[in-house]
C-alpha cells in the first residue's frame, strides 16, 4: 500500500480526534446539576437544599457487621459532612420492604417509613408493577453521567426495565468457593468435571434450596449449560423454550442428587452452606460476592484454604440497586445519597480490597486518572479473582419470569421428587 501525505494527514487527524474524544469521554466530569427533571425538584441546588439537615431512612439487610460498619462510616459520616444529612440505616432480616410499602399504599399513607431501599430484582418488579416507586430520577442525578445506561445489565434489573426508578451502586458476580484441603488446587471448572468430581466424592457437594437466590442462580447456570449459553432465556418468558430445556435440567439435577450432601434428602440455606464449607462438612459453597471468601477468611470464619473460581463457560453477574418508594418523605435526601454512592470518592472505597472489596457497576475509565492508578495499585487477596478475569466470564441474568418458572419447577421436579 502506498501512503501519500494527504492520507497520512487524514489518518493522523482521525487518530488525534479519537484520542481527544476518548479523553473527553474517559474522565467524565460530573457537574453538580440535574441532567433531567425529577419529580418535585427543578434543580440539583433545590434537591441539596431540601436534603440539608434531614434524616434518610435507608432500609437494608443488616446481617453483616462489615457492611453495617462500612455503610455507617463510608456513607453515613460522609453525607453528614458533605450535605448535612443524617443516615438512619434500618437493619432488616427478611425482605420486608415490599410488605412495608404495600401496606402503606393500601392504607393511603403519604409519608412512609422508607426513603431509600437496597432492593433486588424480584421486589423491584413487584413494586414497579404496582406503581409504588418514586421517579423517574436515577438517570437525572448528577453522577448518573458515570452510568452506562446503554449496558443491558444496568438498563434492566432481571430483565425488567429500570427506566430511571433504580440507581446502581455495586456489582455482583457469581463465584464458586472451594476448600483446597478437600478439592486440591485444580477445581472442576466445567459442569462435566464438576459432575465427575461429585460422583467421585459423594456427600461433599450441594447447593442452597430454591427459591433462595444463591440456589436459584446455581440452577440458572445449569440451564445455561444445558442450552449451551444464556441466549434462549434473555427475552420474555417462553413456555415452549422452557419445556425444551427444563426436563434435561431436572434430570441432571436428579441424577447428581444421590451423591450430594445427605444424599440430596435436603438442601441447606446459603449461609448454612458457608459454615459447612468452613467446617469441612462440604467442599464447595457459592455466592454472588467474589470477595466474600476473602472477607470470611479475614474474619476467621473461613480457613485459609478456601479459594474461588468461575466456570469456563462463565458465571452470572448483576447489579445492586437502590430505589425510592412513592411515599418517601425525603426523596431529596435519598437522591443525594444515591448520587454520593456513585461518586469517585465512594466508588474508590467500594472497589478497594482492603475496604469494601466489592465490584463496581461503573467502568473505571469514566473516573479520573488517579482513580485508575489507585485501582491498578490495589492488591487482591489470593482468594479473590481479578476484576478482569471476572468481567471476562460475566454472563447476563435471564428475565425475571424465567427465574420464577425455574424456582417453581425445581421445587416440583427436584425437591419434591
Amino acid at each position, binding site marked *: 500500500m502506498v501512503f501519500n501525505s494527504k492520507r497520512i494527514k487524514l489518518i493522523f487527524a482521525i487518530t488525534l480526534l479519537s484520542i481527544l474524544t476518548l479523553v473527553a469521554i474517559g474522565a467524565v466530569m460530573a457537574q453538580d446539576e440535574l441532567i433531567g427533571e425529577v419529580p418535585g425538584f427543578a434543580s440539583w441546588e433545590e434537591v441539596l437544599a431540601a436534603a440539608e439537615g434531614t434524616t434518610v*431512612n435507608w*432500609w437494608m*439487610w*443488616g*446481617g*453483616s*457487621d462489615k457492611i*453495617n*460498619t462500612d455503610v*455507617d*462510616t463510608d456513607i453515613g459520616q460522609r453525607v453528614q459532612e458533605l450535605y448535612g444529612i443524617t443516615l*438512619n440505616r*434500618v*437493619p*432488616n*432480616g427478611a425482605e*420486608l420492604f415490599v*410488605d*412495608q410499602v404495600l*401496606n*402503606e399504599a*393500601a*392504607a393511603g*399513607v403519604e409519608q*412512609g*417509613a*422508607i426513603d431509600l431501599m437496597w432492593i433486588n430484582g424480584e421486589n423491584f418488579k413487584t413494586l414497579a408493577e404496582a406503581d409504588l416507586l418514586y421517579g423517574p430520577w436515577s438517570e437525572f442525578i448528577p453522577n448518573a453521567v458515570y452510568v452506562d445506561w446503554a449496558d443491558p445489565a444496568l438498563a434492566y434489573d432481571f430483565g425488567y426495565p429500570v427506566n430511571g426508578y433504580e440507581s446502581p451502586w455495586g456489582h455482583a458476580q457469581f463465584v464458586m468457593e472451594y476448600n483446597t484441603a478437600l478439592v486440591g488446587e485444580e477445581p472442576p471448572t466445567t459442569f462435566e468435571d464438576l459432575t465427575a468430581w461429585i460422583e467421585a466424592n459423594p456427600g461433599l457437594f450441594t447447593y442452597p434450596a430454591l427459591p433462595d437466590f444463591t440456589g436459584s442462580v446455581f440452577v440458572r447456570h445449569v440451564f445455561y449449560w444445558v442450552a449451551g449459553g444464556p441466549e434462549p432465556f434473555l427475552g420474555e418468558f417462553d413456555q415452549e423454550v422452557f419445556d425444551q430445556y427444563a426436563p434435561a435440567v431436572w434430570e441432571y439435577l436428579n441424577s447428581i442428587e444421590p451423591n450430594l450432601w445427605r444424599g440430596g434428602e435436603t438442601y441447606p*440455606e446459603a*449461609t448454612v452452606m*458457608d*459454615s459447612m464449607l*468452613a*467446617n*469441612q*462438612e462440604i467442599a464447595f459453597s457459592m455466592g454472588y460476592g467474589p470477595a466474600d471468601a476473602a472477607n*470470611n477468611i479475614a*474474619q*476467621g*470464619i473461613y*480457613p485459609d484454604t478456601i479459594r474461588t473460581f468461575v466456570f469456563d463457560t462463565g458465571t452470572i453477574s448483576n447489579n445492586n440497586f437502590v430505589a425510592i418508594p412513592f411515599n418517601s418523605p425525603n426523596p431529596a435526601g435519598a437522591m443525594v445519597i444515591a448520587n454520593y454512592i456513585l461518586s469517585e470518592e465512594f466508588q474508590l472505597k467500594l472497589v478497594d480490597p482492603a475496604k469494601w472489596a466489592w465490584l463496581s457497576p461503573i467502568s473505571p475509565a469514566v473516573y479520573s486518572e488517579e482513580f485508575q492508578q489507585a485501582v491498578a495499585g490495589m492488591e487482591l487477596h489470593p482468594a479473590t479473582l481479578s476484576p478482569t478475569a471476572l468481567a471476562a466470564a460475566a454472563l447476563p441474568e435471564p428475565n425475571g419470569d424465567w427465574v420464577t418458572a425455574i424456582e417453581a419447577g425445581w421445587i416440583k421436579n427436584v425437591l419434591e421428587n
Partner: protein
Amino acid sequence: MQRTFRWLAVIAIVLGVALPVIPQIIWSLAHRWLFPALLPTEWSMSSWEYVFSPSSRVVEGFMNSLEIAVFVCILSILVGLPAARAIALNDFKGKGIIEWLLMVPIIVPGIVSTLGIHQLFIRLHLTNTFIGVSLVHLIPCIPYMVLVMVSVFSNYGTELEDTARTLGAGPIRVFLNVTLPGILPGLMVATMFTFLISWGQYITTVLIGGGTIVTLPVVLFPFITGINYSNAAAISLVFVAPAILVLIFTSRQLGQDSAVMGGFGRL
C-alpha cells in the same frame, strides 16, 4: 437409690441447661474456631467491641427494648389486672366466651393477624411510634397476664379488703395495703411473662416500628441467620442477660406458688 436418682437429675439438669449455652459464650470470644478444634484457635474481643460500637446499634436497641418492655408491663397490668379480677371473682353471662376471646391471640398463629394489624395501625397513625410498638406488643401479653392473674384472684379472698374498707380505708389504701401484698407473687410472675414477650417481639416491631424504633431483636435477627457466629453469640448474650436477671427476681415465686402457674389450666 434415691440418692442415685438425685445425682442423675442434678447432672442431667446442669449439663442439659449448660450445653447449648456454653458454645455461645465461647463463640462470642472466638476469632477462629473451625472443625475439629475443641476450643478456638484464635481468641478476640472484636465481637464485643462491635456490640458496643454505635454501628451495631446494640446499645440503642437495648435501651429501646427496655423502655418498651417496661411500658408494656405497666399497660398490661393496668388492663389485665381489672379484667382478671372481674373474671375470677364474678359470675356473669358470657363469661366463657370472654375467657376464650382473651386467649385467642395465643391460639391463632401470628401470621394471620400481623399483616392486618399493620394496616390497621397505619390507619390509626400508630406506625413508627413508641406507643404503636408498645400496643402491638401488648396484644400477646394480655392473655398471659389475665391467665396468671385470674388464677391468683380465684384463690384470693376478698374478706380482708372488706374489713379494711369497713375500718374506713379508701380504695387506694385498700389496694396498696391489702390487695397488692396478697397478689404480689403472682403479679411478679405475670409481669415477668409480659416483659419477656415484649422483649422477644421481632416481626411486629419491624412492621409497626417501621425502622424508626430499632429494638434488640431487630438488631439480632439478621445475625442469627447469618454466618458470623461470634457476633450472633455476643448479641444473643446481651439479649438474654436481662431475661435471666428478671428470672432471678421471680424465681422463688415461680417455684413456690402453685396458684400462680395454675392459671395456665384455664385455657
